[in-house]
């Protein structure tokens, strides 16, 4: 196995990124956020440089870099912004970036559905709830964070473990999985032989998979949506019951 000498760069990059995130946490005396953001992004780029370089076309690599940088930057800004409205808006940008990453992986329908559901519905619901439940002016619980150092250290230990596992994986791990991809489908409707190539006919194959293999699960998901709607209406405060 490798010694610590092989890993100190990764550890340093993790520490740099974690220090940046910790720097930007809400605290009593506000520190300039741009320093923390630069620290975190430098750490993220150092971490990214340790991942094995892709052998794909250059255009896809550029697009991936743009979307990944946007996703991570907006995520850091989301969890550290002191105004919940800004958090919701940064989350919308994270959603759009993740949809770009979906698109790069030939998941066009998923990208469109995620934009519609997340950016179109969920973020709007969040903004409405902030409007209904936000007190005017700043509140103390948005200006302080709970245990920022412990949380950052624990979370970046997890990230280091994940990335270390990823780094120690050889290329055979993924190729073997790709070789075994002739999965036997439970339902003849899904016809895996025709739709085994994932980069062609994605919507067709996804529809066959959803309404072939996962037909009952789709029905169940619809039922869950209905139950959640009824539950939300029942829980939400209203004027006639005196809870508003």
């Amino acid at each position, binding site marked *: 196995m490798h010694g610590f000498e092989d890993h100190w760069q990764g550890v340093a990059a993790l520490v740099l990124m974690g220090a940046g995130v910790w720097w930007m946490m809400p605290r009593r005396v506000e520190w300039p956020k741009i320093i923390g953001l630069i620290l975190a992004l430098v750490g993220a780029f150092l971490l990214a440089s340790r991942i094995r370089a892709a052998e794909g076309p250059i255009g896809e690599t550029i697009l991936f870099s743009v979307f990944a940088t946007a996703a991570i930057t907006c995520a850091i800004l989301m969890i550290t912004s002191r105004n919940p409205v800004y958090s919701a808006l940064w989350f919308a940008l994270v959603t759009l970036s993740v949809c770009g990453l979906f698109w790069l992986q030939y998941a066009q329908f998923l990208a469109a559905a995620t934009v519609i559901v997340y950016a179109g519905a969920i973020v709007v619901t969040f903004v409405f709830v902030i409007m209904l439940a936000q007190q005017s002016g700043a509140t103390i619980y948005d200006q302080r964070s709970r245990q920022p150092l412990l949380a950052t250290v624990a979370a970046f230990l997890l990230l280091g473990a994940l990335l270390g596992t990823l780094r120690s994986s050889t290329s055979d791990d993924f190729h073997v999985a790709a070789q075994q991809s002739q999965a036997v489908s439970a339902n003849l409707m899904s016809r895996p032989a025709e739709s*085994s190539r994932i980069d062609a006919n994605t919507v067709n194959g996804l529809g066959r998979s959803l309404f072939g293999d996962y037909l009952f699960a789709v029905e169940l998901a619809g039922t869950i949506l209905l139950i959640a709607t009824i539950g939300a209406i029942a829980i939400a405060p209203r004027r006639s019951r005196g809870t508003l």
Partner: protein
Amino acid sequence: MTGDIERYLAVGAALFVLGAIGFFTRRNLIVMVLSAELMLHGVSLTLVTFGRVHNSFEGQAFTIFILTVAACEAGLGLSLVLALFQKSKTLDIDFWTELREPDLPSPRVREEAEHRTPFELPQPAYPKLTPAGRVPDLEHERDPRLVDSARSQTAETPLQPPVVKEVIKSVSH
């Protein structure tokens, strides 16, 4: 192909970890729910990537179910947040630490004497605009259709409070 797979997994892991940090550290109920959604994004990205590794659509199908559950979770969670806000008039998660087990110590971090009521942040200095153009004569050019019936009974009261009128006059002179 392999580096292609690994970088997507790395971004998914980073998004998950950042969402976890937000969930641990933030004290606003709404931001905590948002951070949970961020963790779901990381998991969705990982699922789609592994689906591509295995050359099957199961990852994308699972992600669609994640989408469904996330929508349900957002609706239910936000209605719960609204109900809690109506009871306590605060979104602070520390307010609800009374729901813990009775023999556990309070997880609340004692800081300085915290003020419960909201306070004003220092506002940024907005630029002062020089007044330009004619000052609209709001009293005489009022459109009668804009005045509702209740107000038209006391039609002599102007639409705007007198303070605004004085400000407009002082600007125009």
